[in-house]
């Protein structure tokens, strides 16, 4: 075998992996037929990405004041809100926040107690039946990993680039685009009772437009109180809920790959030295 043909085949086979891998994720949200999604430049994208704790705090505010009245987040504990890489509330803030919530505990004489930082986020409804009953038959999905359960569809070849950029932010992009695309339905579309038209979905859904300008009061005047800003903030917060250790994972990845590259270089030199006396 001569060396040039090896490199050519190497390229072909390298492409194989990218191709074959991408295809399985491509149809993730093929049902989406509406307007093209507008991809956001998230602070947590890319190999050096990390969450903006201020954005997460704003996102939490939107979650707590708007979303949490219908949506649960059973896998998030109060203590997570003060952990490294997250919204970075202080431990006292989290303790005070938890104390505002009631946890049902049939083991206690009173049958309930105030929540502590170790408790999970309480569900707004006790059962799915209750949830459906309060939402005209629809079941508001739990937020815990919802940001990772959604994705945007991209045209070839753009999705193929994701393997090289590590782009995995299709979930928050989906959420952002869903939230900013509540518009009036086209004239020829009849929207059923209890449903709302969404231009991004190109269809209707049971959730009405949850955000309006000024619905959440941000501290100070730095960030606009617009639907776009709220949407970006809640999408970022939901991504953090789904992937709370993203920043430390990427940091460790950077160290690991740097180490592997150096090790591979040294290994190659040793290998070449060992083989130097062999005609091959």
């Amino acid at each position, binding site marked *: 075998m001569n060396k040039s043909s090896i490199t050519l085949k190497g390229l072909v086979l390298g492409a194989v992996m990218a191709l074959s891998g991408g*295809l399985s*994720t491509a149809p993730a949200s093929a049902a989406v037929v509406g307007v093209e999604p507008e991809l956001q430049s998230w602070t947590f994208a890319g190999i050096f990405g990390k969450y903006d704790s201020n954005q997460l705090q704003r996102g939490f505010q939107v979650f707590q004041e708007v979303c949490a009245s219908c949506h649960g987040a059973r*896998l998030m504990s109060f203590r997570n809100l003060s952990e490294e890489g997250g919204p970075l509330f202080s431990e006292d803030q989290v303790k005070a926040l938890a104390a505002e919530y009631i946890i049902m505990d049939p083991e206690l004489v009173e049958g309930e107690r105030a929540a502590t930082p170790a408790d999970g986020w309480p569900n707004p409804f006790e059962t799915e039946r209750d949830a459906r009953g309060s939402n005209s038959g629809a079941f508001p999905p739990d937020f815990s990993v919802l940001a990772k359960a959604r994705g945007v569809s991209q045209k070839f070849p753009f999705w193929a680039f994701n393997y090289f950029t590590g*782009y995995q932010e299709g979930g928050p992009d989906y959420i952002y685009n869903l939230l900013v695309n509540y518009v009036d339905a086209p004239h020829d579309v009849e929207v059923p009772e209890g449903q709302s038209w969404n231009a991004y979905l190109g269809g209707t859904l049971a959730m009405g437009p949850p955000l309006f300008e000024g619905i959440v009061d941000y501290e100070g005047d730095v960030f606009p109180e617009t639907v776009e800003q709220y949407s970006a903030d809640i999408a970022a917060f939901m991504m953090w809920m789904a992937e709370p*250790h993203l920043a430390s994972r990427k940091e460790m990845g950077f160290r690991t790959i740097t180490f592997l590259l150096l090790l591979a270089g040294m*290994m190659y030199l040793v290998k070449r030295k060992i*083989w130097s006396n062999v005609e091959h």
Partner: protein
Amino acid sequence: MSGQSSYNPTNPVEKWFDERLPILRFSKEHLMDFPTPKNINYWWTFGAILMFVLVIQIVTGVVLAMHYVADASMAFDSVEHIRRNVNYGRIIQAVHANGASMFFFAVYLHIFRGLYYGSYKAPREILWILGVVIFVLMMAISFMGYVLPWGQMSFWAATVITDIFGAIPIVGEPILVLLRGGFAVDNATLTRFFSLHYLLPFVLLAVVMLHIWALHVPGNNNPTGVEVKSSRDTVPFHPYITMKDLFAIVVFMIPFAWFVFFAPDILGHPDNYIQANSQITPAHIVPEWYFLPFYAILRAIDFDMLFISSKLGGVIFFGGSIVILFFVPWLDGSKVRSGTFRPLFKPFYWLFVLNFLMLTYLGAQGAEGIFLLLSKVGTAYYFAYFLLILPIVSRIETPNPLPASISESVLGNKGE
């Protein structure tokens, strides 16, 4: 391996031990002195890479099993618990999940290398057959592993794939019930899949040992396909091959780490972050990427053939596409092993590679229109390659002249 052993214990303790359990002698002969063709290229490192990935999968899998709960109501949350609360759990889980993809990536390269260089030909037929057994076991293990997180894709993949067995006449129904532990995929399915997902990798490991044993009888094939003629053609396994394999393993770990740390979910499907729900069928049920070519073959048969329904026909072709691999050593009659010296074989081989990639692509598309038509063409070529092209080409082809020996081919290369 033949000839005098190079293991000559001098120390009396070693001697005493050697007479009772010659494990050191065995290691010296097979892990150090084993003569290996000196011209094997980097495609030959995938054997060691696969061994490495298998060990990674077993070690990470054992740790995950300490925290995972095989119960339909708790499985989904227990995997999230591993990712969120277990020390380094997110890394261990990501290594295991992406490790399956890396395993298949490496095994496909390993298989295609064997197909190109004729590594299945005499005297390596048993070696090849054991390899196909390993591949089948890998498919079963990875499929069952994919069910364990109990997301929507897990659940529906389990439903669709077990359903395939239901198409078999007479015994299909009992097999289906046995696989699922009931009439539908449910808790009983999850618990038996977990049990088997833990058991079968050790069976796989045993078959890998046989595979390596079968390799060490005739020794490695090599890019020229010419048998080893003298010790000038070989190098000892250690340090030459061990060092080369280790280097390749470290290089392989780089893209592996890329996926684990920077894009751990990119090879998966977002729907698997939705807990399994038997009441809601996902819009597209797509298997993991490494099953896509076979999935395309399964769906390509959408027509009845005589008394065979389209469903059974699909299952026959799906099963046949793997079973046919067992017969490759006897379908290809060419005495020349390496594709390098087979001018007529080569274009058909590369077309087969492209066809396999096309089937991978088609497996992810809807089974309709042009995609379905291409799936049929791809399926036809897949079977034609083994059943028509390999037997016919080997009869009518005039191979290029072979080098007299490995050493000669190596020296010849230098002159180019």
